[in-house]
Protein backbone atom coordinates (compact mmCIF):
# COMPACT_ATOMS: atom_id res chain seq x y z
CA UNK A 1 0.00 0.00 0.00
CA UNK A 2 2.75 2.43 0.88
CA UNK A 3 4.31 1.77 -2.54
CA UNK A 4 1.06 2.79 -4.25
CA UNK A 5 0.97 5.93 -2.12
CA UNK A 6 4.54 6.77 -3.14
CA UNK A 7 3.68 6.16 -6.78
CA UNK A 8 0.54 8.32 -6.91
CA UNK A 9 2.17 10.97 -4.80
CA UNK A 10 5.23 11.29 -7.06
CA UNK A 11 3.27 11.18 -10.32
CA UNK A 12 0.31 13.41 -9.51
CA UNK A 13 0.30 15.13 -6.15
CA UNK A 14 3.91 16.01 -5.49
CA UNK A 15 4.87 16.00 -9.15
CA UNK A 16 8.55 16.96 -9.38
CA UNK A 17 7.93 19.61 -12.00
CA UNK A 18 4.73 21.16 -10.70
CA UNK A 19 5.16 20.78 -6.95
CA UNK A 20 8.90 21.00 -6.32
CA UNK A 21 9.69 23.00 -9.48
CA UNK A 22 12.63 20.74 -10.22
CA UNK A 23 13.87 19.86 -13.70
CA UNK A 24 12.50 23.00 -15.30
CA UNK A 25 15.41 23.37 -17.70
CA UNK A 26 14.74 20.26 -19.79
CA UNK A 27 11.02 20.75 -19.14
CA UNK A 28 10.96 24.09 -20.97
CA UNK A 29 13.80 23.34 -23.35
CA UNK A 30 12.57 20.12 -24.92
CA UNK A 31 8.81 20.58 -24.73
CA UNK A 32 8.37 22.19 -28.13
CA UNK A 33 7.44 19.01 -29.99
CA UNK A 34 5.70 15.87 -28.81
CA UNK A 35 8.22 13.33 -30.17
CA UNK A 36 11.42 14.69 -28.60
CA UNK A 37 9.60 15.46 -25.35
CA UNK A 38 8.56 11.83 -25.05
CA UNK A 39 12.16 10.71 -25.61
CA UNK A 40 13.30 13.20 -22.99
CA UNK A 41 10.72 11.88 -20.53
CA UNK A 42 11.92 8.33 -21.13
CA UNK A 43 15.57 9.37 -20.66
CA UNK A 44 14.72 11.18 -17.42
CA UNK A 45 12.79 8.17 -16.13
CA UNK A 46 15.77 5.97 -16.94
CA UNK A 47 18.31 8.21 -15.22
CA UNK A 48 16.02 8.71 -12.21
CA UNK A 49 15.63 4.96 -11.68
CA UNK A 50 19.38 4.55 -11.97
CA UNK A 51 19.90 7.39 -9.53
CA UNK A 52 17.49 5.88 -7.04
CA UNK A 53 19.39 2.60 -7.01
CA UNK A 54 22.89 4.04 -6.88
CA UNK A 55 22.15 6.76 -4.35
CA UNK A 56 20.47 4.27 -2.02
CA UNK A 57 23.47 1.97 -2.23
CA UNK A 58 26.03 4.70 -1.62
CA UNK A 59 23.94 6.16 1.19
CA UNK A 60 23.22 2.93 3.07
CA UNK A 61 26.42 1.02 2.42
CA UNK A 62 29.01 3.77 2.56
CA UNK A 63 27.81 7.03 4.06
CA UNK A 64 25.56 6.01 6.95
CA UNK A 65 27.84 3.26 8.36
CA UNK A 66 30.70 5.77 8.49
CA UNK A 67 28.54 8.61 9.86
CA UNK A 68 29.17 10.68 6.76
CA UNK A 69 25.56 11.79 6.02
CA UNK A 70 26.74 15.34 5.42
CA UNK A 71 28.64 14.20 2.33
CA UNK A 72 25.43 13.12 0.59
CA UNK A 73 25.34 15.93 -1.97
CA UNK A 74 28.96 15.54 -3.09
CA UNK A 75 28.97 11.78 -3.25
CA UNK A 76 25.59 11.59 -5.02
CA UNK A 77 26.79 13.95 -7.74
CA UNK A 78 29.94 11.91 -8.18
CA UNK A 79 28.24 8.57 -8.37
CA UNK A 80 25.36 9.65 -10.60
CA UNK A 81 27.59 11.45 -13.10
CA UNK A 82 29.98 8.53 -13.35
CA UNK A 83 27.22 5.98 -13.63
CA UNK A 84 25.32 7.78 -16.36
CA UNK A 85 28.53 8.18 -18.30
CA UNK A 86 29.12 4.48 -17.96
CA UNK A 87 25.62 3.60 -19.10
CA UNK A 88 25.94 5.97 -22.04
CA UNK A 89 29.09 4.20 -23.19
CA UNK A 90 27.42 0.86 -22.71
CA UNK A 91 24.33 1.83 -24.72
CA UNK A 92 26.48 3.29 -27.48
CA UNK A 93 28.29 0.02 -27.87
CA UNK A 94 25.40 -2.36 -27.41
CA UNK A 95 22.47 -0.62 -29.03
CA UNK A 96 23.20 2.22 -31.49
CA UNK A 97 19.48 2.88 -32.24
CA UNK A 98 18.75 3.37 -28.55
CA UNK A 99 21.80 5.62 -28.31
CA UNK A 100 20.51 7.69 -31.24
CA UNK A 101 17.12 8.08 -29.57
CA UNK A 102 18.26 8.74 -26.02
CA UNK A 103 21.98 9.45 -26.16
CA UNK A 104 21.87 13.19 -26.68
CA UNK A 105 19.51 13.68 -23.75
CA UNK A 106 21.48 11.68 -21.23
CA UNK A 107 24.37 14.14 -20.65
CA UNK A 108 21.81 16.94 -20.51
CA UNK A 109 20.02 15.57 -17.48
CA UNK A 110 22.79 13.99 -15.40
CA UNK A 111 23.53 17.25 -13.65
CA UNK A 112 19.95 18.45 -13.43
CA UNK A 113 18.40 19.35 -10.10
CA UNK A 114 15.60 16.79 -10.53
CA UNK A 115 18.19 14.02 -10.18
CA UNK A 116 19.76 15.56 -7.08
CA UNK A 117 16.32 16.34 -5.66
CA UNK A 118 15.24 12.74 -5.97
CA UNK A 119 18.36 11.34 -4.30
CA UNK A 120 18.19 13.80 -1.41
CA UNK A 121 14.41 13.44 -0.90
CA UNK A 122 14.66 9.66 -0.84
CA UNK A 123 17.47 9.87 1.73
CA UNK A 124 15.56 12.42 3.79
CA UNK A 125 12.43 10.27 3.96
CA UNK A 126 14.39 7.14 4.94
CA UNK A 127 12.87 5.04 2.17
CA UNK A 128 14.00 1.43 2.01
CA UNK A 129 15.44 0.03 -1.22
CA UNK A 130 12.17 -0.98 -2.92
CA UNK A 131 10.49 2.26 -1.93
CA UNK A 132 13.40 4.27 -3.32
CA UNK A 133 13.24 2.47 -6.67
CA UNK A 134 9.47 2.95 -6.92
CA UNK A 135 9.94 6.59 -5.96
CA UNK A 136 12.53 7.04 -8.72
CA UNK A 137 10.44 5.40 -11.44
CA UNK A 138 7.28 7.26 -10.51
CA UNK A 139 9.13 10.58 -10.34
CA UNK A 140 10.31 9.90 -13.89
CA UNK A 141 6.81 9.00 -15.05
CA UNK A 142 5.53 12.17 -13.40
CA UNK A 143 8.10 14.18 -15.34
CA UNK A 144 7.14 12.39 -18.57
CA UNK A 145 3.48 13.17 -17.98
CA UNK A 146 4.29 16.81 -17.30
CA UNK A 147 6.51 17.29 -20.35
CA UNK A 148 4.18 15.47 -22.74
CA UNK A 149 1.21 17.54 -21.54
CA UNK A 150 3.27 20.67 -22.00
CA UNK A 151 4.46 19.69 -25.49
CA UNK A 152 0.91 18.97 -26.61
CA UNK A 153 -0.23 22.37 -25.39
CA UNK A 154 2.73 24.18 -26.91
CA UNK A 155 2.14 22.58 -30.29
CA UNK A 156 -1.34 24.10 -30.20
CA UNK A 157 0.01 27.43 -28.94
CA UNK A 158 2.24 27.70 -32.01
CA UNK A 159 -0.86 28.35 -34.07
CA UNK A 160 -2.50 30.68 -31.58
CA UNK A 161 -2.30 34.44 -31.70
CA UNK A 162 -0.13 35.12 -28.64
CA UNK A 163 0.41 38.79 -27.69
CA UNK A 164 3.92 39.90 -28.69
CA UNK A 165 5.37 40.52 -25.18
CA UNK A 166 4.33 37.02 -24.07
CA UNK A 167 5.63 35.03 -27.02
CA UNK A 168 8.15 32.26 -26.37
CA UNK A 169 9.28 31.75 -22.78
CA UNK A 170 6.57 34.03 -21.39
CA UNK A 171 3.60 32.01 -22.55
CA UNK A 172 5.44 28.75 -21.79
CA UNK A 173 5.91 29.73 -18.15
CA UNK A 174 2.31 30.92 -17.85
CA UNK A 175 1.15 27.60 -19.29
CA UNK A 176 3.37 25.70 -16.85
CA UNK A 177 1.93 27.74 -13.99
CA UNK A 178 -1.64 27.00 -15.01
CA UNK A 179 -0.93 23.26 -15.34
CA UNK A 180 0.70 23.39 -11.89
CA UNK A 181 -2.43 25.01 -10.50
CA UNK A 182 -4.54 22.28 -12.06
CA UNK A 183 -2.29 19.63 -10.51
CA UNK A 184 -2.90 21.19 -7.09
CA UNK A 185 -6.39 19.78 -7.47
CA UNK A 186 -4.95 16.30 -6.87
CA UNK A 187 -3.74 17.22 -3.41
CA UNK A 188 -6.83 15.78 -1.68
CA UNK A 189 -6.37 12.22 -2.98
CA UNK A 190 -4.05 11.05 -0.23
CA UNK A 191 -4.32 12.23 3.34
Amino acid sequence: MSLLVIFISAVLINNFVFYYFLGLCPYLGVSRRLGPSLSMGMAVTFVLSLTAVSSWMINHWVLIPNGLDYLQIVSFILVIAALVQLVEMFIRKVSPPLYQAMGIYLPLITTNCIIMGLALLAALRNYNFVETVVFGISAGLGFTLAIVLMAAIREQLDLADVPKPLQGAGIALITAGIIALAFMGFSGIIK
Partner: protein
Amino acid sequence: MNIIIPIITMGIIGFGLALGLAFAYRKFKVEVDPRIEEIAAALPQANCGACGFAGCQALAEALVAGKAQTNACPVGGNEVAARVAAILGVEAAPVIKKVARLHCRGTHEAAPTKGKYLGINTCLAAHLIGGYKLCSYGCLHFGDCVRSCQFDAMRLAEDGLPIIDEEKCTACGKCVEACPRNLLELHPVEENILVFCRSKDRPAVARKVCRNACIACNICVRACPEAIIMEDNLAKIVDWKKIPEEKIPAIEKCPTGAIGRLKKEERKEIKPEQVETEISS
Protein backbone atom coordinates in the same frame (compact mmCIF):
# COMPACT_ATOMS: atom_id res chain seq x y z
CA MET B 1 41.07 12.65 13.09
CA ASN B 2 37.52 13.43 11.97
CA ILE B 3 38.69 14.78 8.66
CA ILE B 4 40.62 11.67 7.67
CA ILE B 5 37.66 9.31 7.31
CA PRO B 6 35.64 11.47 4.85
CA ILE B 7 38.74 12.19 2.78
CA ILE B 8 39.58 8.52 2.53
CA THR B 9 35.98 7.52 1.80
CA MET B 10 35.51 10.08 -0.95
CA GLY B 11 38.94 9.25 -2.29
CA ILE B 12 38.05 5.58 -2.54
CA ILE B 13 34.68 6.28 -4.16
CA GLY B 14 36.23 8.68 -6.66
CA PHE B 15 39.12 6.38 -7.47
CA GLY B 16 36.83 3.38 -7.84
CA LEU B 17 34.55 5.22 -10.23
CA ALA B 18 37.50 6.56 -12.20
CA LEU B 19 38.87 3.06 -12.56
CA GLY B 20 35.48 1.78 -13.62
CA LEU B 21 35.12 4.51 -16.23
CA ALA B 22 38.62 3.99 -17.57
CA PHE B 23 37.97 0.29 -17.86
CA ALA B 24 34.60 0.83 -19.51
CA TYR B 25 36.12 3.33 -21.93
CA ARG B 26 38.48 0.66 -23.19
CA LYS B 27 35.93 -2.09 -23.19
CA PHE B 28 33.09 -0.18 -24.84
CA LYS B 29 35.09 2.03 -27.16
CA VAL B 30 33.34 2.54 -30.48
CA GLU B 31 35.77 2.80 -33.36
CA VAL B 32 35.02 5.84 -35.46
CA ASP B 33 36.55 6.46 -38.86
CA PRO B 34 38.88 9.49 -38.41
CA ARG B 35 37.87 10.72 -41.88
CA ILE B 36 34.39 11.49 -40.53
CA GLU B 37 35.79 14.22 -38.30
CA GLU B 38 37.97 15.60 -41.09
CA ILE B 39 35.08 15.79 -43.54
CA ALA B 40 32.77 17.31 -40.95
CA ALA B 41 35.37 20.02 -40.43
CA ALA B 42 35.58 20.65 -44.18
CA LEU B 43 31.80 21.06 -44.54
CA PRO B 44 30.28 24.53 -44.01
CA GLN B 45 28.71 23.59 -40.63
CA ALA B 46 25.53 25.43 -41.54
CA ASN B 47 23.57 22.31 -40.53
CA CYS B 48 20.82 23.40 -42.90
CA GLY B 49 19.90 19.91 -44.08
CA ALA B 50 19.94 20.86 -47.76
CA CYS B 51 21.89 17.69 -48.54
CA GLY B 52 19.01 15.59 -47.27
CA PHE B 53 20.86 14.43 -44.15
CA ALA B 54 20.26 15.54 -40.57
CA GLY B 55 23.23 17.90 -40.55
CA CYS B 56 26.87 18.27 -41.51
CA GLN B 57 27.94 15.47 -39.15
CA ALA B 58 25.36 13.09 -40.63
CA LEU B 59 26.47 13.96 -44.16
CA ALA B 60 30.09 13.32 -43.20
CA GLU B 61 29.12 9.87 -41.94
CA ALA B 62 27.17 9.16 -45.12
CA LEU B 63 30.08 10.32 -47.29
CA VAL B 64 32.51 8.00 -45.57
CA ALA B 65 30.01 5.16 -45.81
CA GLY B 66 29.71 5.85 -49.54
CA LYS B 67 26.04 6.72 -49.28
CA ALA B 68 26.44 10.27 -50.57
CA GLN B 69 28.14 11.95 -53.52
CA THR B 70 31.02 14.34 -52.91
CA ASN B 71 28.88 17.12 -54.38
CA ALA B 72 26.03 16.45 -51.95
CA CYS B 73 26.51 19.76 -50.15
CA PRO B 74 24.85 22.49 -52.23
CA VAL B 75 25.91 25.20 -49.81
CA GLY B 76 29.64 24.56 -50.08
CA GLY B 77 29.73 24.31 -53.87
CA ASN B 78 32.75 23.13 -55.86
CA GLU B 79 35.27 24.20 -53.25
CA VAL B 80 33.88 21.97 -50.50
CA ALA B 81 33.31 19.12 -52.96
CA ALA B 82 37.00 19.28 -53.90
CA ARG B 83 38.14 19.20 -50.28
CA VAL B 84 35.80 16.31 -49.43
CA ALA B 85 36.99 14.41 -52.47
CA ALA B 86 40.61 14.98 -51.45
CA ILE B 87 39.96 13.53 -48.00
CA LEU B 88 38.13 10.54 -49.44
CA GLY B 89 40.70 10.12 -52.21
CA VAL B 90 38.18 10.16 -55.06
CA GLU B 91 37.44 12.38 -58.02
CA ALA B 92 35.23 15.37 -57.20
CA ALA B 93 31.86 15.42 -58.96
CA PRO B 94 31.07 18.88 -60.32
CA VAL B 95 28.41 20.87 -58.53
CA ILE B 96 25.68 22.51 -60.53
CA LYS B 97 24.89 25.73 -58.71
CA LYS B 98 21.20 26.02 -58.13
CA VAL B 99 19.06 28.83 -56.82
CA ALA B 100 15.49 29.15 -55.61
CA ARG B 101 13.09 30.78 -58.04
CA LEU B 102 9.53 31.96 -57.61
CA HIS B 103 6.78 30.61 -59.83
CA CYS B 104 4.28 33.40 -59.34
CA ARG B 105 3.82 36.96 -60.49
CA GLY B 106 0.60 37.58 -58.57
CA THR B 107 1.58 40.91 -57.08
CA HIS B 108 -0.76 42.99 -54.93
CA GLU B 109 -1.68 44.85 -58.07
CA ALA B 110 -2.09 41.93 -60.47
CA ALA B 111 -4.02 39.50 -58.27
CA PRO B 112 -7.00 40.99 -56.39
CA THR B 113 -8.12 39.86 -52.93
CA LYS B 114 -11.43 38.37 -51.84
CA GLY B 115 -11.62 40.76 -48.92
CA LYS B 116 -9.67 41.83 -45.88
CA TYR B 117 -7.71 39.07 -44.12
CA LEU B 118 -7.62 39.45 -40.35
CA GLY B 119 -5.88 36.22 -39.32
CA ILE B 120 -2.32 35.48 -38.27
CA ASN B 121 0.23 37.10 -40.54
CA THR B 122 1.85 34.01 -41.97
CA CYS B 123 1.37 32.37 -45.35
CA LEU B 124 0.76 29.03 -43.63
CA ALA B 125 -2.16 30.36 -41.56
CA ALA B 126 -3.66 32.20 -44.51
CA HIS B 127 -3.30 29.12 -46.70
CA LEU B 128 -5.07 26.91 -44.12
CA ILE B 129 -8.27 28.92 -44.51
CA GLY B 130 -7.94 28.85 -48.29
CA GLY B 131 -6.12 32.13 -48.71
CA TYR B 132 -7.54 35.62 -49.05
CA LYS B 133 -6.86 36.10 -52.74
CA LEU B 134 -9.10 35.20 -55.61
CA CYS B 135 -6.29 33.09 -57.03
CA SER B 136 -5.99 29.98 -54.92
CA TYR B 137 -2.53 29.09 -56.24
CA GLY B 138 -0.64 32.35 -55.91
CA CYS B 139 1.68 34.04 -53.45
CA LEU B 140 0.19 35.15 -50.13
CA HIS B 141 2.78 37.89 -49.51
CA PHE B 142 3.45 37.23 -45.82
CA GLY B 143 7.02 36.14 -46.43
CA ASP B 144 7.21 32.72 -44.74
CA CYS B 145 9.99 32.04 -47.25
CA VAL B 146 11.83 35.24 -46.27
CA ARG B 147 11.73 34.26 -42.59
CA SER B 148 12.89 30.72 -43.36
CA CYS B 149 16.05 31.88 -45.18
CA GLN B 150 19.16 31.36 -43.06
CA PHE B 151 21.45 33.02 -45.56
CA ASP B 152 19.82 36.44 -45.78
CA ALA B 153 19.14 35.88 -49.47
CA MET B 154 15.46 36.79 -49.52
CA ARG B 155 13.59 40.05 -49.08
CA LEU B 156 9.95 40.90 -49.49
CA ALA B 157 9.34 43.50 -52.20
CA GLU B 158 6.74 46.21 -52.07
CA ASP B 159 4.70 44.42 -54.74
CA GLY B 160 4.25 41.52 -52.28
CA LEU B 161 6.54 38.95 -53.88
CA PRO B 162 9.88 37.85 -52.47
CA ILE B 163 13.12 39.02 -54.11
CA ILE B 164 15.76 36.32 -54.24
CA ASP B 165 19.41 37.35 -54.14
CA GLU B 166 20.92 34.70 -56.41
CA GLU B 167 24.42 35.55 -55.21
CA LYS B 168 23.55 34.71 -51.62
CA CYS B 169 21.15 31.83 -52.33
CA THR B 170 22.74 28.48 -51.51
CA ALA B 171 19.85 26.29 -52.69
CA CYS B 172 19.36 24.89 -49.21
CA GLY B 173 15.65 24.46 -49.96
CA LYS B 174 14.33 25.89 -46.71
CA CYS B 175 12.08 28.36 -48.56
CA VAL B 176 10.84 25.61 -50.88
CA GLU B 177 9.60 23.79 -47.79
CA ALA B 178 8.29 26.95 -46.13
CA CYS B 179 6.00 27.99 -48.98
CA PRO B 180 2.59 26.41 -48.32
CA ARG B 181 1.69 26.87 -51.99
CA ASN B 182 4.87 25.33 -53.40
CA LEU B 183 5.67 28.37 -55.46
CA LEU B 184 9.43 28.15 -54.98
CA GLU B 185 11.60 25.65 -56.74
CA LEU B 186 15.33 25.09 -57.13
CA HIS B 187 16.68 25.65 -60.62
CA PRO B 188 20.19 25.68 -62.08
CA VAL B 189 21.47 29.25 -62.33
CA GLU B 190 21.94 28.88 -66.09
CA GLU B 191 18.30 28.05 -66.64
CA ASN B 192 17.19 31.25 -68.30
CA ILE B 193 13.52 30.66 -68.97
CA LEU B 194 10.76 30.05 -66.47
CA VAL B 195 7.00 29.71 -66.07
CA PHE B 196 5.94 32.36 -63.58
CA CYS B 197 2.66 30.77 -62.60
CA ARG B 198 1.32 27.71 -60.79
CA SER B 199 -2.37 28.27 -61.42
CA LYS B 200 -4.31 25.28 -62.65
CA ASP B 201 -7.50 27.28 -63.01
CA ARG B 202 -9.45 27.11 -66.26
CA PRO B 203 -8.43 29.91 -68.63
CA ALA B 204 -11.58 31.95 -67.99
CA VAL B 205 -11.08 31.77 -64.22
CA ALA B 206 -7.33 32.33 -64.35
CA ARG B 207 -7.82 35.44 -66.46
CA LYS B 208 -10.23 36.84 -63.88
CA VAL B 209 -8.24 36.12 -60.70
CA CYS B 210 -4.81 37.34 -61.83
CA ARG B 211 -3.56 39.53 -64.62
CA ASN B 212 -0.28 37.62 -64.85
CA ALA B 213 -1.65 34.08 -64.74
CA CYS B 214 -1.06 31.41 -67.34
CA ILE B 215 -4.27 31.29 -69.39
CA ALA B 216 -3.38 28.16 -71.33
CA CYS B 217 -3.45 29.93 -74.70
CA ASN B 218 -0.80 27.60 -76.10
CA ILE B 219 1.23 30.36 -77.76
CA CYS B 220 4.41 29.15 -76.07
CA VAL B 221 3.65 25.52 -76.84
CA ARG B 222 3.25 26.33 -80.52
CA ALA B 223 6.49 28.30 -80.45
CA CYS B 224 8.51 25.44 -79.04
CA PRO B 225 6.51 22.17 -78.88
CA GLU B 226 9.60 20.02 -78.23
CA ALA B 227 10.29 21.62 -74.84
CA ILE B 228 7.02 23.09 -73.59
CA ILE B 229 3.77 21.27 -72.94
CA MET B 230 0.40 22.27 -71.55
CA GLU B 231 -0.53 20.35 -68.42
CA ASP B 232 -3.66 21.06 -66.35
CA ASN B 233 -4.15 24.48 -67.96
CA LEU B 234 -0.58 25.39 -67.12
CA ALA B 235 2.45 25.70 -69.37
CA LYS B 236 5.29 23.46 -68.31
CA ILE B 237 8.88 23.56 -69.44
CA VAL B 238 9.89 19.94 -69.80
CA ASP B 239 13.52 20.55 -70.70
CA TRP B 240 14.90 24.06 -70.75
CA LYS B 241 18.06 22.95 -72.52
CA LYS B 242 16.02 22.11 -75.62
CA ILE B 243 14.78 25.69 -76.02
CA PRO B 244 17.00 27.39 -78.60
CA GLU B 245 17.87 31.05 -78.15
CA GLU B 246 16.07 32.14 -81.35
CA LYS B 247 12.73 30.74 -80.18
CA ILE B 248 12.66 32.75 -76.95
CA PRO B 249 11.18 35.93 -78.52
CA ALA B 250 8.28 33.86 -79.87
CA ILE B 251 7.73 32.28 -76.45
CA GLU B 252 7.84 35.66 -74.78
CA LYS B 253 4.83 36.73 -76.86
CA CYS B 254 2.83 35.33 -73.92
CA PRO B 255 -0.11 37.74 -73.49
CA THR B 256 0.12 37.67 -69.68
CA GLY B 257 3.88 37.39 -69.34
CA ALA B 258 3.53 34.10 -67.49
CA ILE B 259 6.51 32.57 -69.26
CA GLY B 260 9.78 34.13 -70.26
CA ARG B 261 13.26 35.08 -69.22
CA LEU B 262 14.08 36.24 -65.74
CA LYS B 263 14.37 39.99 -65.71
CA LYS B 264 16.50 41.95 -63.33
CA GLU B 265 14.47 44.82 -62.00
CA GLU B 266 14.83 47.11 -59.03
CA ARG B 267 11.99 46.63 -56.55
CA LYS B 268 11.55 48.37 -53.24
CA GLU B 269 11.97 46.13 -50.19
CA ILE B 270 9.65 46.03 -47.20
CA LYS B 271 9.64 44.12 -43.92
CA PRO B 272 7.32 41.08 -43.64
CA GLU B 273 5.40 42.83 -40.83
CA GLN B 274 4.34 45.60 -43.16
CA VAL B 275 2.23 43.37 -45.38
CA GLU B 276 -1.11 44.98 -46.11
CA THR B 277 -3.83 42.53 -47.07
CA GLU B 278 -6.41 44.85 -48.50
CA ILE B 279 -4.65 46.30 -51.51
CA SER B 280 -7.02 45.23 -54.20
CA SER B 281 -7.92 46.70 -57.52
